[in-house]
């Protein structure tokens, strides 16, 4: 069956890349070839997967041909396929960008296998249809992230690493406990099967408690209020390409897990779920953006923005109408591109201006207007200004809030977008407009470094503009994904077949 391979490829390609580049330890050139080939292959494979999913609807593949729910099923619906495709894009972008600066040192510390391992875990998490298997992918991502966070050798990275490791391990272990308990309640681990079994469990309280444990485990990974401590404690210490791929993918896997499990398994199982999700969404948006408003270091500002934007995605999940879920999907896709790009631009700004601290920057608009434009595109998109990608994401989320009886969430989302703009303006005014600080500035960004740094940035900015201006295919895909998520039957039928086993 062709689709079986299509679903497995996004897991196999990075696995192979990881193994190969680990085997080629110390031979940087060969490792680079492996990474670039793998990224290109993953892009192709994910494009094929998206096409297949568009054509066939939800596709499922039983690993080892063991029928669900007894073996592990890989499932690709539109959301999963889109996430895999965007992961491939991020893989390629960070791989190229990483070549620009400080590359020998990172490569000597295992950059290539670690990056591939991270992508391996991320793709696995998106495609699995099994709750325990999802836990395994979480841990693959986690260990790769541990290794990547401390790449480059900054002193503050170790402090960040300890907090990151302890808090994340706490969260995944809670998730694991939740998985065990849910198995205890239903006797199954297959998500589609769980969707059928959970409503049959007699003890609502037990289901609710387990749902909360899972929500907390995923929520901590997604960096929602009040479990996001690890993110602002760590992300600003990572090297620019590492921070970019972290910012793009890791929290989104948590959001993905929340969407997947709470739109499939715990639908209507507890009355509090939409309220808690809505409250968490609002608090996450507000506390995140206030954190960004409080800081004066580009990376710290950007880190807090990740949190704030996660809140927007949760709004979609809290409302949970097809339109709202579509909004969440559109928002995630947009956000991944924009957020990664901002971290990449931040790296280029540091290279040009000499610092991440706004106090030490200035005059970049005069010096390098292209850099300014390349910052402005993702920054304004993040703030949701039209006609960039963020506007459409925000629009659909807010529209679903107004129509789905959650006007207060829509109002919070609107207010937060003004504060987002405020904090982006801070960067613009200080780094680009203000007079440059006294003293000799670093050399202009030129030559190959410029190409390697700004190439991926331009590519991602073009994606942002494409989503903003040629919105129809993305909007249509998001709406279809929202329909798929809200109408769970397609997913369940694809995994379990027509009748129950």
């Amino acid at each position, binding site marked *: 069956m062709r689709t079986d391979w299509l679903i497995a490829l996004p897991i196999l390609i990075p696995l192979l890349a990881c193994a190969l580049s680990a085997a080629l330890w110390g031979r940087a050139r060969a490792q680079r070839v492996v990474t670039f080939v793998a990224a290109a292959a993953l892009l192709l494979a994910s494009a094929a997967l998206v096409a297949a999913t568009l054509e066939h609807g939800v596709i499922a593949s039983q690993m080892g041909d063991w029928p669900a729910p007894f073996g592990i099923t890989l499932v690709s619906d539109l959301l999963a396929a889109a996430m895999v495709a965007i992961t491939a894009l991020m893989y390629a972008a960070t791989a190229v960008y990483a070549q620009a600066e400080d590359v020998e040192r990172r490569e000597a510390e295992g950059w290539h296998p670690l990056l591939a391992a991270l992508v391996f875990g991320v793709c696995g998490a998106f495609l699995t249809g099994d709750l325990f298997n999802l836990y395994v992918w979480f841990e693959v991502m986690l260990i790769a992230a541990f290794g990547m966070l401390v790449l480059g050798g900054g002193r503050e990275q170790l402090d960040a690493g300890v907090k990151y490791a302890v808090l994340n391990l706490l*969260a995944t272990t809670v998730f694991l406990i939740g998985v065990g*308990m849910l198995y205890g309640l239903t006797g199954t681990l297959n998500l589609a099967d769980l969707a059928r079994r959970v409503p049959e469990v007699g003890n609502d309280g037990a289901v609710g408690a387990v749902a909360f444990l899972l929500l907390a485990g995923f929520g901590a990974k997604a960096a929602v209020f009040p479990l996001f*401590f690890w993110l602002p404690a760590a992300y600003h210490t990572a090297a620019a390409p590492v921070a970019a791929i972290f910012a793009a993918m890791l929290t989104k896997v948590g959001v993905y897990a929340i969407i997947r499990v709470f739109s499939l398994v715990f639908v209507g199982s507890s009355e509090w779920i939409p309220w808690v999700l809505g409250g968490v969404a609002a608090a996450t948006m507000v506390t995140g953006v206030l954190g960004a408003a409080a800081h004066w270091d580009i990376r710290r500002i950007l880190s807090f923005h990740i949190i704030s934007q996660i809140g927007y995605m949760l709004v979609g999940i809290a409302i949970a109408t097809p339109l709202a879920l579509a909004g969440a999907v559109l928002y995630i896709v947009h956000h991944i591109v924009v957020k990664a790009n901002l971290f990449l631009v931040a790296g280029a700004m540091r290279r040009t201006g000499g610092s991440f601290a706004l106090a030490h920057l200035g005059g970049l608009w005069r010096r390098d207007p292209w850099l300014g434009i390349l910052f402005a595109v993702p920054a304004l998109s993040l703030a949701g200004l039209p006609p960039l990608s963020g506007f459409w994401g925000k629009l659909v989320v807010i529209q679903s809030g107004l129509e789905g009886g959650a006007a207060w969430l829509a109002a919070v989302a609107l207010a937060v977008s003004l504060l987002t703009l405020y904090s982006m303006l801070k960067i613009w005014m200080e780094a680009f*407009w203000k007079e440059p600080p006294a003293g000799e500035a670093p050399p202009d960004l030129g030559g190959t470094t410029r190409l390697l740094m700004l190439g991926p940035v331009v590519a991602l900015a073009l994606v942002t503009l494409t989503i903003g201006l040629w919105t129809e295919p993305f*909007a249509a895909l998001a709406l279809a994904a929202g329909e798929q998520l809200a109408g769970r039957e397609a997913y369940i039928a694809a995994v379990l077949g027509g009748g129950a086993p």
Partner: protein
Amino acid sequence: MLFPTLLVFAALLAVPVIALAVRRWPALAPASALLPAALFVLALLTPPEGPATAPWIPSLNVAFAWHADGLARLFVLLITGIGAGIFLYASAYLHGHPQLHRFMAVLCLFMASMLGAVLADDLLLLFIFWEMTSLASFMLIGFEAERASARKSAQQGLLVTVGGGLALLAGILLLGSAAGTFRISAILAQGEAVAQHALGPWIMVLVAIGAFAKSAQWPQHMWLPNAMAAPTPVSAYLHSATMVKLGVYLLARLNPAFQLEPLWQAMLIGIGAMTMVTGAVLALRETDLKLVLAWSTVVALGTLVALIGVEDPRAATAVIVVLLVHALYKACLFMVAGILDHETGTRDATRLRGLQRLMPMTGIAAALGALSMAGLPPFVGFVAKEMLYEVKLDVPGLLPLVAMLVNAAMVVVAGVVAARPFLGPLAPTPRKPHDPPLSMLAAPLALAGLGILFGIAPWLIAEGLVEPAAAAILGRPTEAKLVLWHGFTIVLFLSVATLGLGLALYLAWSRVQPALASIRVLDEVGPNALYTRWLGAVQAVSAWQTALIQSGSMRRYVAISFAIIFGGAAAALLAGGGLAWPGLAPAPGAHQAALVALVAIGAVAACVARALVAQVMAVGIVGFGIGILFLSLGAADLAFTQFTVEVIAIVLLVAVLARLPFRAPDARTPRARRWDAALAVGVGVIGAAVMLAVLAEPFDARIPEWMGAAAVPEAKGRNIVNVILVDFRALDTLGEIAVIAIAAMAAAVLFRRVKGGRA
């Protein structure tokens, strides 16, 4: 369809062209004025046309829907016509500036956005261009970004207009869901239906907030005078034909749907009148020519908004005439102020006197513009003011009186800007004054000339421009009677009285101005002060909450995480009435009970022990105890894995601990220990309660049953746990191996780093 599309996209495409061409050949900058000029001619030659649509984002109901009716066309003519003058003027004003190419390009982007906004028939399309004007004006206001005041003003302008824009967006979305469409023409075709909808009041308020922010209505007006930080050509453009008129445009555009609603009328008239008064008072306090003019713009905008709120065909006509007149004279006077600044080195009204002989042409432009502004015949300003009075006399309340006082203030402004600098004895200025080159004079002279032309021959604009535009505001055709001379009516009497009052005030200006300026409270209570305080509060609150949440203390992070996770789980368990007891069946064997007790004791010992070594040993006991427990529960493979892992873990632990200060005590304070103990006990109890509730449910064992049945015939394995690991759930094992391999790799790298002393 072709016309609007061509207009907007030609302007958009010109942006990069201008940027690159002017950068390469700065001398070409004046030629950029040909673009708006050509668009102006095109608009003049194209008759009004109805809405037309091309698809854009059908999934989201957004289309490239355009209209070029009378109202849109009037705006297009203003934007491109005055734009042509501004482009020419700007290229001379900023002649030789190293950033000229960027300035011209952003100016062009600004024009394109304005054109898009007034030509859009789709509310979301309009909103997109609406926000783009905010962004472009941000770049223009902050053009001289080295000055902190320019940066701050640009930020304020953007935050206020985008903030209003968010309200507008909410209003548009509600309007869309109430009307079932975002197409303006379709919404207006529904008549009063939208206003009667349950969401009607919300829609009106939200749309009005957005429009008020853009059009600098009280209390959102503060950004406009601060926007004077922009180079003068920008001010001239922003204040006359663009930006601030956009809010007025939107109110006028949607007026047919809401014009009968008392809420709509009250909002527009009330806020408009408040704005008029505020602007008039503040205009008289200033001596900076640009600021004086800026406040007079606020007055004009208030007038326009209030007029839209008056439900009367004559009011609609008056809106259009006032709009047109104001655009002409305001652009002219701003450019004059810019010339004075440029040529004399100051724009302080108290320092500029007697320039008539040195700058005669500038003086003529100033006089013509000012007379129109003051509303003297035969200027078109007179026509506008007469209409204004006619309408306002019919409105009960204070409005006529307000209008008269405010117009008197406008007479003063006209005098201060256009008469005072040119009359009297010559005063010394920083630079030696002389008339500027023709490229700077052409636009103000032309605009002033139009002011007198339209005054003498109002029929030139009545039928072609004013009537169709006024019809769009009313939602039905109307006839515009524009005449210069109405005969001796009460309106004329009012005009004369206004003029007299204005002249008296003007003569007393040198005493009135300082007196008003010395009223400090006006600076301290206004919305501008409020904005500053609000910004400070945002910064303070955000710093406070961030320090509170993100304390930097890992202990606190861990504690909060556990408290939230298990507190929430407890709440969910209790809310669902989930407490349950599974019973002791199957009864534990004595050895099993003993093992459980052993593990529990080991665990508690790990807490109670103070020495790290003892704690490690206790944890080891727990690990081995669990292993034996596994064995007793029929999990042999598991037990052996547990033993192996436990041994390696302890060895590793000891190896690493040997390098750490393992004698260091657990330095928690007694108070902290009490809190921690309470949390630990709480979490343990909740965890056990949830686990008990889970185990009390009946168990569905079909998966192990299937596995037991399938292991031998299908998977060819006799150890089912093994079969699961290598076959049924091989993907888990793949991930597990990956984790171990990556962990080993990452740990080795870190290990080398520490060994290499690079940590």
